């Protein structure tokens, strides 16, 4: 299930966010964002300027007001992103109702405790209809569990001790039976708790890329601070006295406030988008890394193919009709509850073979598949119907397999399919073509990834022949056949030593080392606790194709940051043309032609630039929260498009914007 994102300006979020915008004015919080901190100091100094005796107090007051707005808008952006994250988290948190649970003491005694008192290593007993108090592993028993609270999927899932289905998540409900669970986390450290704190911003740490960008922005701020400070003596030399508020206005317009104000909102929104896709990330770093992935390791089963081989074709032996073969195939599969067996019945239906009920055939004796016989089937009315591997049937049937059928078998094997021969004791009836069915649309998806420069590697336990055929059909770049867990790990290491970033998705305990080694390891929620701990993301839906969305979200996060940085820096050109002539025209009337926007007056020009600078932050909040659209069209094409929109657009838009604001504030007689 994908949660619906809250609408951008939902008042339930925007209201508290407005309050938070003021709370965030705390200098101890502001200092973490050097660009906005400088803006706030500038706003404070300008405010002081209102109370000094001067002629232009009205102008200074408006300047101060808009400078404060600039800071508040930036804070509001961050608060909005956090608010949306909280709203998502709240939905998850609803599952965190305070529950009582039975802890099994060291002496085996049961004691009633609050869920919050549980510690890692405690063992609890949970019975039908009760809520599982915390994340853990089933160590005894099996139960069906309703995980809809987390995944939204209403069908219950089976959780049992041992194997790959032993992990349970706190907040889910046991529907039947009882299980003993060893708690694997302390209160407040669960996966959900971590995710909640990440989106709430409380424990948000800057990601490597965010740190690098913050350094760039801080350095630009220092440089522009230097530019504005030295402008004072240059002004004195030139006989132009620049007042401090005007220099502050210039400074705030030049420093990259747009990206500075939206940077943390972009990061939080990225986490938030993941959560909307029901993926919990352990850290922002993991989200960012997913944008850098070069190699995707995908398990064939469930990701590339529908999960199981299916019967796609009946190829009758010479002298046998398709109908006869379909009928025999159906009979031999009636008792076969495996997905392959069911698919034979389904296919037979297409040939008009009515589905028979077992109770309609009292005399039938069903033969189950065993590793020794490698056949299954039914003895009905004295006829022995069997289907099975070629060799097994060869030994069973009294007839020899015809050349034509041998050819068919060979053809199917070479194409990566599995031939199942159907026969009676007397003669071979034909072959069922069992085949892995590649998911619809997956090939196009991989083609997109290739365009992005991401290599896809299919991991499968199949032999090389089968793997080759499926790889070709699905359009993956490479495959690892007959893969053992250690092969996966070795493959990841090999790719990493070549400088590539690897992402994989896995569920089993034996996937844990590979998940830990991968740069982006997505564990399925249905997987073991070991797998979940080894990975740095958990997919609550346990949908292997989710990895593709995760990568897109990672890329989108980086693109949004880059685009807004470019936009912010490109904006400076227009602001120069607004403010510099305004500052100088009093002393040097000759430079009036430099006022190419034909702004009304020096004060209106400066105020317009500052207002534009503040409003652009609020205008871009939706973009920051939603993210710049990512299209898999290759790096050069994306670069061209974004350079055009955010680079060139960033140069042009403020000219129009500042002029527009100038017209408005002049009409309103604000200056």
């Amino acid at each position: 299930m994908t949660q619906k994102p809250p609408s951008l300006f939902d008042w339930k979020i925007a209201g508290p966010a407005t309050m938070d915008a003021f709370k965030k004015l705390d200098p101890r919080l502001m200092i973490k964002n050097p660009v906005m901190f400088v803006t706030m100091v500038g706003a404070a100094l300008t405010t002081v300027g209102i109370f000094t005796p001067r002629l232009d107090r009205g102008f200074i007051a408006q300047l101060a007001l808009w400078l404060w707005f600039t800071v508040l808008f930036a804070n509001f952006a961050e608060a909005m992103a956090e608010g949306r994250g909280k709203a998502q988290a709240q939905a998850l948190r609803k599952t965190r109702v305070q529950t009582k649970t039975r802890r099994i003491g060291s002496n085996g005694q049961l004691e009633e405790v609050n869920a919050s008192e549980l510690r890692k290593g405690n063992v609890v007993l949970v019975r039908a209809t009760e809520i599982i108090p915390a994340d853990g592993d089933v160590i005894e028993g099996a139960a069906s569990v309703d995980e809809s609270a987390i995944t939204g999927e209403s069908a219950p899932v089976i959780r049992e001790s041992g194997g790959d289905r032993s992990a349970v998540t706190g907040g889910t409900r046991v529907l039947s039976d009882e299980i003993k669970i060893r708690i694997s986390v302390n209160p407040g450290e669960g996966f959900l708790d971590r995710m909640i704190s990440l989106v709430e911003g409380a424990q948000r740490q800057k990601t490597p890329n965010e740190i690098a960008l913050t350094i760039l922005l801080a350095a630009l701020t220092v440089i522009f601070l230097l530019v504005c400070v030295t402008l004072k003596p240059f002004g004195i030399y030139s006989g132009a006295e620049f007042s401090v508020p005007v220099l502050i206005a210039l400074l705030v317009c030049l420093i990259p406030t747009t990206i500075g104000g939206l940077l943390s909102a972009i990061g939080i929104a990225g986490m938030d988008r993941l959560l909307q896709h029901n993926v919990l990330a352990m850290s922002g770093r993991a989200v960012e890394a997913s944008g850098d992935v070069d190699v995707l390791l995908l398990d064939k089963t469930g990701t590339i193919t529908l999960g199981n081989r299916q019967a796609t074709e009946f190829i009758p032996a010479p002298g046998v009709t398709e109908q006869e073969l379909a009928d025999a195939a159906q009979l031999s599969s009636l008792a076969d509850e495996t997905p392959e067996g069911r698919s034979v019945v389904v296919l037979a239906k297409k040939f008009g073979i009515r589905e028979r009920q077992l109770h309609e055939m009292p005399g039938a004796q069903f033969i189950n598949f065993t590793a020794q016989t490698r056949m299954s089937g039914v003895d009905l009315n004295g006829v022995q119907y069997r289907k099975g591997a070629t060799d097994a049937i060869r030994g069973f049937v009294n007839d020899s397999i015809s050349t034509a059928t041998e050819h068919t078998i060979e053809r199917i094997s070479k194409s990566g399919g599995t031939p199942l021969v159907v026969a009676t004791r007397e003669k071979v009836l034909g072959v069922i073509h069992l085949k892995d069915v590649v998911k619809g649309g997956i090939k196009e998806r991989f083609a997109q990834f290739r365009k992005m420069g991401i290599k896809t590697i299919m991991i499968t336990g199949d032999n090389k022949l089968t793997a080759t055929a499926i790889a070709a059909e699905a359009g993956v770049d490479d495959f690892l056949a007959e893969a053992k867990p250690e092969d996966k790990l070795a493959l990841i290491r090999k790719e990493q030593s070549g400088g590539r970033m690897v992402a994989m998705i896995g569920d089993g305990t034996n996937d844990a080392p590979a998940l830990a080694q991968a740069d982006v390891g997505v564990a399925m929620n249905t997987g073991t606790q070991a797998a979940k701990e080894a990975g740095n993301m958990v997919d609550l839906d346990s949908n292997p194709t989710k990895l593709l969305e995760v990568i897109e979200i990672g890329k989108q996060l980086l693109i949004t940051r880059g685009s807004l940085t470019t936009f912010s820096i490109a904006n400076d050109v227009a602001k120069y043309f607004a403010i510099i002539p305004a500052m100088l025209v009093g002393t040097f009337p000759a430079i009036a032609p430099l006022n190419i926007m034909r702004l009304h007056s020096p004060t209106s020009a400066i105020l317009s630039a500052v207002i534009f600078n503040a409003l652009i932050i609020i205008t871009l909040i939706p973009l920051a929260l939603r993210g710049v659209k990512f299209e898999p069209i290759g790096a050069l094409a994306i670069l061209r498009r974004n350079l055009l929109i955010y680079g060139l657009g960033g140069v042009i838009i403020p000219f129009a914007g500042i002029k527009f604001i100038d017209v408005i504030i002049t009409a309103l007689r604000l200056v």
Partner: protein
Amino acid sequence: MHSIDWLQLSVFVGVLALITKPMGLYLVRVLDARGKTWLDPVLKPLERLTYWAMGVKPDQEQGWKQYTFAMLLFSLVSCLFTYAILRFQHLLPLNPQGFGPVSPDLAFNTAVSFVTNTNWQSYGGESTMSYLSQMVALVIHNFTSAATGIALAAALVRGIARHTAQTIGNFWVDLVRITYYLLLPICLVVAVFLVSQGMIQNFKPYTKAKLTEPYTIQVPKTDDKGQPVTTNVAVLVQAPKLDEKGQPVMTNGVAMMVDVPKLDEKGQPAMTNVPVMVDQKVEEQAIAQGPVASQIAIKMLGTNGGGFFNANASHPFENPTPLSNFIQMLSIFTIGSGLTYYLGRMTKNQAHGWSVWSAMMLLFLGGVLLCWWAESRGNPIHQQLGVAVADGNMEGKEVRFGIFNSALFATVTTDASCGAVNSMHDSFTALGGFVPLFNMQLGEIIIGGVGAGLYGMLVFVVLAVFIAGLMVGRTPEYLGKKIQSYEVKMAMLALLVLALSILGFAAWASVSQWGLAGLNNSGPHGLSEILYAFSSANGNNGSAFAGLNANTPWYNTTIGLAMLIGRFLMIVPIMAMAGSLAQKKIVPLSAGTFPVSGFTFVLLLLGTVLLVGALNFLPCLTLGPIVEHFQTLLGKLY
């Protein structure tokens, strides 16, 4: 803007493009410690001998810290060496004119100036420096400071090209090989060529020539003992002229002023001693001589720019013919241009090398065209008066070179950190003078100083890749190297140093007594002079806007500091970046990789240079040349 000039511009760019590849390929061999060149039979023994004498093990490479330390140590020692020679030149040989010791502040300024490849000259060579000072103390730096720059660029390129490496080369090996295999042989050829054009190369004392038109000047009268004779006169001050009624006389609304004796507290006229002046007839001219050609070859090739004569490349002995002028301009760009090819070759991405070259060329052409256009248009005041409109602005230009070759030379010398001049940049029109000033404030990255231009440009490349690289949805990668916070920090530190040094010193000078005292012109033009001096010093260019008397203790010291900051404080972060890049893995190319070649990249790089590099200087440039331009349009001069 005549067609013959367009032709020359095309030929200049064309020839430069043609020599870029051979120069680059030769650099690949020179900058490889085991590289083979056709000069090996002659120079290899000398190279080995030098290593042996210096105790250098040529096979041992250095990490970035060792490399940088070696460079700093070498620069410090050679700086002190030059300082000592200048201070003691009166005691040393080869001083036929008998010049005295150079003053401490000037010696500091000059030693720093040459060690930093700036060659800012607060002095006139022919009236201050002995031949020994010129040939040993100064010329040695023309080679070593150029070699140092090239070595540093090579170290940075190695850092980019290598992966998971700890070392970026051996400074001593680079220094020796660049000097022996690159600079000396080419200089030999160029010097011989320049001599063929009429440039002088001798050790003669200055010769006397009889003037065909003797003229008279006033000189202070001296008595028998050689002491100046003075006389006591009243001090005059200006006061408004009053008419009979005691009202000020006005002309065009301004009070007329007259000189009146200044009175002291007692009402007595104040008196002062002034020297008595007498007429002196000048019939002879001293013509300076010296070993010019040998110095000029390296002055251009190593983008040093320090002239043998005060008039620099406008002096007939220092730039005799149009062909020598062309070859000198070409020499300035040769190595810097070749280094872009070296970058492409070493990183196995030749398209990237050419893209960097193209970005540089576009900036170069933009500068030339603006400067040339502004100078051809001439002075608007002349236009209004109808004076010599067709000639353009010829003030301060050598008639042998004219408008185009002066504009081209000015652009080339400030694109590169050369600083040689064949015209007075101070006399350019406001916009014409804006171009050299702007070029230097960009950090001289348009081809740039040998080596320095490339590593300066690569700082912008790293920033461009970082800012725009995010837009393709990956952690930015430059040629497979991830650009992370360390690289961003170092690149921004280099930019910060540039802005801090230029703006800081210029702002200080513009409001201080010592700063204003040296000014020849007032208003925006005076500000341009100050900005130019510190931009030139910080960029290690060394050309001067003239008009500013910088040979004062304050200017000598602050400009000296600006030169040191502009060179060494830039280099350290850049070398740190080289070291960090060398250690990184190379991420293989894929369709998702940020492209660092092609049209889009060139435009992106230009945008970054102009937005991140130039915007910082726009306010002060507005107060200087841009305001001056608009004022000139209204007929106001400074």
